[in-house]
């Protein structure tokens, strides 16, 4: 085939190019720009090369925050995914209960992040909060402003309360798309309840679960507002996650250079994890096709 060369076609790509440039590339390049310079004031700046990156990569507080972050995201996924699937399986399939459950489940998702933080901050207080008061009443020494374990658990429970619904709704949609014939065939084949879940329901939920896991991973890995409102990252640094650490560095201490280097690494970590996860899952799916 003869290729027709028509360079005018490039003009048609221009609008997209501009939009992407303004929305993504230019802001990102600004961050790259900051990450390789030491800016003392608007007029004075030095090129420092990879120095900020080196400093960030050897910062032990950052390592701690990263470990905390990984632990947190893993806990969130390990609790919310099975719990979400479990709840989705028990939801009614028809009748008025469906809409009632949908509304109840959607409620936490509609609440703004910082309001969620405030709700739990009050809920967990031992003096005026229902939850905190009750826990102390039954003999559990619970105070999230002093005990790092309590703080950690509170943030975790709050996240589970806020976001499990998302997984439930996704799984429920996946379950509803399974034709009745599958269940009937499984009945005739003498499949146990577990086999039905393992061989029919789980495979059919796979694609929505991939989306669910990705969303929950990214969101929890970038969590900021709720712990900021609830614990402010404390007590000590117990609930200081990456975003919080980054904000403290960039806004609190105005260390723009290291903060920019940190942002880039942060961004790369999320990108890498999502890419690996997605590729692994999709490859597993494709191997089945062959």
């Amino acid at each position, binding site marked *: 085939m003869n290729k027709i060369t028509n360079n005018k076609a490039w003009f048609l790509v221009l609008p997209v190019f501009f939009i992407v440039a303004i929305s993504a590339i230019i802001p990102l390049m600004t961050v790259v720009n900051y990450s390789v310079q030491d800016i003392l004031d608007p007029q004075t700046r030095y090129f420092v090369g990879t120095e900020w990156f080196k400093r960030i990569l050897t910062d032990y507080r950052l390592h701690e925050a990263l470990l905390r972050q990984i632990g947190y995201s893993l806990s969130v996924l390990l609790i919310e995914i099975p719990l979400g699937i479990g709840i989705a399986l028990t939801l009614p399939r028809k009748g008025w209960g469906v809409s009632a459950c949908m509304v109840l489940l959607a409620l936490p998702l509609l609440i703004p992040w910082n309001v969620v933080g405030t709700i739990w901050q009050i809920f967990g207080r031992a003096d005026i909060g229902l939850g905190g008061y009750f826990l102390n009443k039954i003999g559990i020494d619970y105070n999230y402003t002093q005990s790092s374990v309590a703080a950690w658990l509170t943030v975790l429970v709050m996240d589970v309360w806020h976001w499990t619904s998302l997984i439930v709704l996704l799984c429920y949609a996946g379950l509803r798309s399974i034709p009745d*014939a599958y269940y*009937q*065939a499984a009945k*005739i084949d003498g499949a*146990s309840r577990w086999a039905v879940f393992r*061989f029919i329901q789980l*495979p059919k939920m796979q694609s929505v679960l991939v989306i669910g896991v990705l969303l929950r991973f990214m969101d929890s890995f970038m969590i900021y507002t709720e712990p900021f409102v609830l614990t402010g990252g404390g007590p000590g640094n117990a609930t200081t996650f990456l975003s919080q650490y980054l904000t403290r560095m960039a806004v609190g201490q105005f260390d723009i250079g290291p903060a920019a280097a940190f942002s880039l690494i942060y961004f790369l970590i999320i990108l890498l994890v999502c890419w690996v996860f997605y590729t692994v899952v999709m490859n597993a799916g494709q191997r*089945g*096709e*062959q």
Partner: protein
Amino acid sequence: MARIDLDNLAHSYFPDPKGDEDYALRRMEHVWEDGGAYALLGPSGCGKTTLLNIISGLLTPSHGKVLFDGKDVTNLAPEQRNIAQVFQFPVIYDTMTVYENLAFPLRNRGVDEKRVHARVHEIAEMLDLSGKLKQKARGLGADEKQTISLGRGLVRDDVSAILFDEPLTVIDPHLKWVLRRKLKEIHNKLRPTMVYVTHDQIEALTFADKVVVMYGGKVVQLGTPQELFENPAHTFVGYFIGSPGMNIMPCNIDDGAAWIDGQRIALSDQQLTALGKASGKTELGIRPEFVRLHTEGQAPEGSIEVNIVKVEDLGQFKIATTRFGTTELKVKVGEDQQIVGQSGFLQFPQEWTKIYADSQLVA
């Protein structure tokens, strides 16, 4: 394999059905003989699938009993009845290989692996799936998936009956034929009791030894394909089977003959005697294949004169639409017969002229 009796069976989806119209399945007595290949034919919504689900145990009938070899199984769950069912859309377990799919019903029943291995290979051989046993089932075509569904039914050697719920709906036309032949082969080899639900008359007539025609929740006729064609017991059977369907015309009985639009059509003595006992709206039915059309020469005796409205040439035969008065009648004419002019004469051979009262065959 088993003989299946439907004893005084009826089903309604309403908790307290009042009239007949509340029943998805009207009261029926029916026997499916052991080893028979039956087709359950009828239009959408006539109760075919309801009946099938009652036999398989997915649905418990509101009235009556289902007996397998004389044993009451009405309240048994599908897995306790030992039946297999192939659904309209292929049901396979996506994450399993073909082998695992076929082994699934056996493993669920705790059959030992050696036996599973032997059975799966035996059935795979029969269904031409041997080369694909190690593949994941999800990558296969719809016809192969449907074959696997069938295979899952066949691997169990204790299966009483195999039920098919419009199994070829999603299969490409050229593969339908292959699968149908495979079914027939399997039936000849293993002689399972097979019940095949379809709304496609060609499928039903080629697959089954006996065809059960359902209409409005009732079985209107059970017979061989030939019986259905030559002797429809209900006007619906006449109309539904055959292409084009039977000509059905309202008629009056008077003076030893049937009168349609003022035209006299002679009836046999036997028909007239039978009519004496019958009551209700009378109709005359005759298949387009059996009406004789003459367009040349003298009017034969007992014929009626008609206008020829339309002639469609379908290759091997022609279909002529004729009219007398306000009545239209289709005639199937051989390819070699010439149709001359705009009018002709119709003859109604007595042995193919059927009389219906209230849609039921009188004689």
